């Protein structure tokens, strides 16, 4: 079944008032299915895919794509998602979630490349991405794209600065109009992934309006901690995960928190736990209902869950090359680059783990659950 023009126009009309209509409830997958997990994935031969799997293991689609993707931006109510090309990709892929059809290969603007992350605005018309200005390498750019619902195509519409260097993940603050962005602080050039300024990094956490105005910009004590991934709780609490580029044997904070109205500061994690992360954090997911934050550390092969308010450890467990994590009812789903994916039920004091019937290995760093 393809999207008919009438349906699209209907959806387009919904864009105007979707916030009042409850948004993405318009399409949540096939009735009766378990949650749909969207992620980038590879196969043994190195082919890249944009995939959708139900958590019960049933494959929805696996669409071959040219560039390796990183994160996924799900449209708030239409059955489409953008699989965002990984740094320094110049392509991202708009996929029809009902059958995996590639609707559009979104190419970056001249002198720009994607950084792997994007978000759709709640009204469904706008998409925002983090990008690199390759004429002025490292200068962070917030790309703005308009989705034409009649033809399901994204068109570049403009850009703003991210007020920092080497932006990575971005997310909406609870007002739905301002964005929090992790500016990783690392300068890379052209089509390269080589870090050019590890001795002069300038990471920052920026909150800005989607139109470009800077609301706040904060930094951490250690300039070699690249602020990369983040999530936002329903109350506006932001948790970030860092990747440290200083000596491997140093012990530096790798998580930080910005509570509403408070300064951005390290999230309390023990030295023993920090040592298990190998200076590298990947995905962050907040479970707002359970007031918990989960994080994957693929280099340390370690997965953690903490209480968001007290900082108490709920789980500190080995997991090979753990990759994407997302909140699901009762806990978190976690994918792995090398092993089986897992579900952690963290509703009770005894965190319980179950392997998911998803294919093992080759899952990329992030997932989106809908």
């Amino acid at each position, binding site marked *: 079944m393809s999207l008919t023009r009438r349906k699209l126009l209907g959806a387009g009309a919904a864009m105007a008032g979707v916030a009042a209509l409850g948004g993405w409830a318009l399409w949540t997958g096939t009735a009766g299915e378990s949650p749909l997990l969207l992620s980038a994935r590879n196969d043994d031969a190195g082919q890249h895919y944009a995939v959708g799997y139900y958590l019960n293991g049933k494959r929805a689609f696996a669409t071959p794509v040219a560039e390796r993707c990183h994160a996924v931006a799900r449209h708030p109510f239409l059955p489409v998602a953008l699989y965002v090309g990984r740094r320094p990709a110049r392509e991202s892929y708009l996929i029809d979630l009902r059958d995996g059809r590639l609707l559009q290969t979104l190419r970056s603007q001249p002198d720009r490349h994607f950084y792997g992350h994007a978000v759709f605005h709640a009204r469904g018309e706008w998409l925002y991405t983090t990008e690199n200005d390759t004429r002025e390498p490292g200068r962070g750019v917030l790309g703005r794209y308009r989705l034409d619902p009649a033809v399901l195509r994204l068109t570049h519409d403009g850009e703003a600065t991210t007020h920092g260097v080497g932006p990575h993940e971005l997310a909406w603050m609870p007002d739905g109009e301002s964005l929090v962005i992790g500016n990783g602080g690392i300068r890379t050039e052209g089509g390269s992934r080589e870090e050019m300024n590890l001795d002069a990094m300038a990471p920052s956490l920026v909150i800005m309006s989607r139109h470009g105005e800077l609301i706040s910009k904060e930094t951490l004590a250690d300039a070699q901690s690249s602020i990369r991934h983040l999530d936002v709780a329903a109350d506006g609490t932001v948790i970030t995960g860092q990747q440290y580029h200083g000596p491997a044997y140093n012990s530096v904070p790798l998580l930080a928190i910005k509570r509403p109205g408070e300064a951005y500061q390290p999230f309390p994690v023990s030295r023993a736990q920090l040592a298990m992360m190998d200076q590298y954090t990947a995905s962050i997911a907040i479970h707002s209902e359970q007031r918990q934050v989960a994080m994957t550390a693929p280099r340390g092969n370690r997965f953690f869950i903490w209480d968001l308010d007290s900082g108490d*450890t*709920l789980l500190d467990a080995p997991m090979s090359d753990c990759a994407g994590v997302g909140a699901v009812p009762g806990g978190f789903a976690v994918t792995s680059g090398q092993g089986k994916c897992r579900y952690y039920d963290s509703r009770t004091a005894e965190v319980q783990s179950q392997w998911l019937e998803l294919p093992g290995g080759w899952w990329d760093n992030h997932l989106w659950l809908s």
Partner: protein
Amino acid sequence: MRALSVLVSVSLSVLLVACSNPRQEVTVQLANDVLLPAHQQWRDSNAALVDAVETYCAAPQASVDDLETAFYQAQSRWSHLQPLMVGPLSEGNRSWQVQFWPDKRNMVVRQTESLLDETDSLTREQLEKASVVVQGLTAFEYVLFDQSVALAQSHDRYCPLLTGIARHQLALSESVLALWNEPGGMLAQLRDFPNERYATAEEGLAAILRTQITGVDVLKKKLGTPMGRLNQGVVQPYQAEAWRSRQSIENLQASLQGAQAVWERVRSLVSDAALVKDIDQAYADVANQLAALPAPLMELVQAPANSETLTTLYAALDNLENRQQTELARNLNIQIGFNANDGD
């Protein structure tokens, strides 16, 4: 921390299949016969190092020979263990406490001397709080072998450090061993599947192979760094691992033997007889060339006449790595790396 309980739902039929699964058998053999003994021997060499340093430091006129022998042995057991250190020793920054290499800025000397300048008689607590740079075998080696240190005349200054490092190594190795042997520990996790760490024996075997293949890659770095392969061809003799004790080649041999011990157990799983022969030959090539080297590595790299010999050895290591990383991994359908090696 709240306990993690794993929901295990394995039917009897699956268990019966698992018991006769050759990959599970090999994984269990590796854990029992190769990995655990290597950790135990590392621990024992550290116990011997403690004895040797206590004996040496108790007698002002004592010969340093026995202490040097104990140090060589501890370093050798650590080298042997490196391609085998799946699990606890590879986690929590522990391996940095054993050895500080590469030491690009000669931090071992500066930090060791400044720590000793700041303390009258170094206590265990002071050493535990100090940087990993001064807690391991590299600092021990500096004190024992560096020509700038007059150890025999400076027992008061250096003996507390040597004793402290040896005891730290022993405590570290005993704590790692405990993590292997405790109920539900690493040994159990490589024997009873599924468990908190691995869903299947396949995952455990893959983890062992990845560690071993990484270990072979580290051998290339240990050879290539003093050769100048990371320095535009300009040799770096003082970047050789263990250059002060002149044990670089012996350490490479010990690591190679550790890696080969894994291969010896995995060989039976390989379906391609030609590949088995090739990998056997690749190990033999590296071992023979290492055995034929006529002088310590830091000396060899400084003589241009040895360049071809060392380049040939490097190529042999590269061949071994490639055979295992690509052909062996493909034959066994083992995934080598993904996000952890190339994340974002």
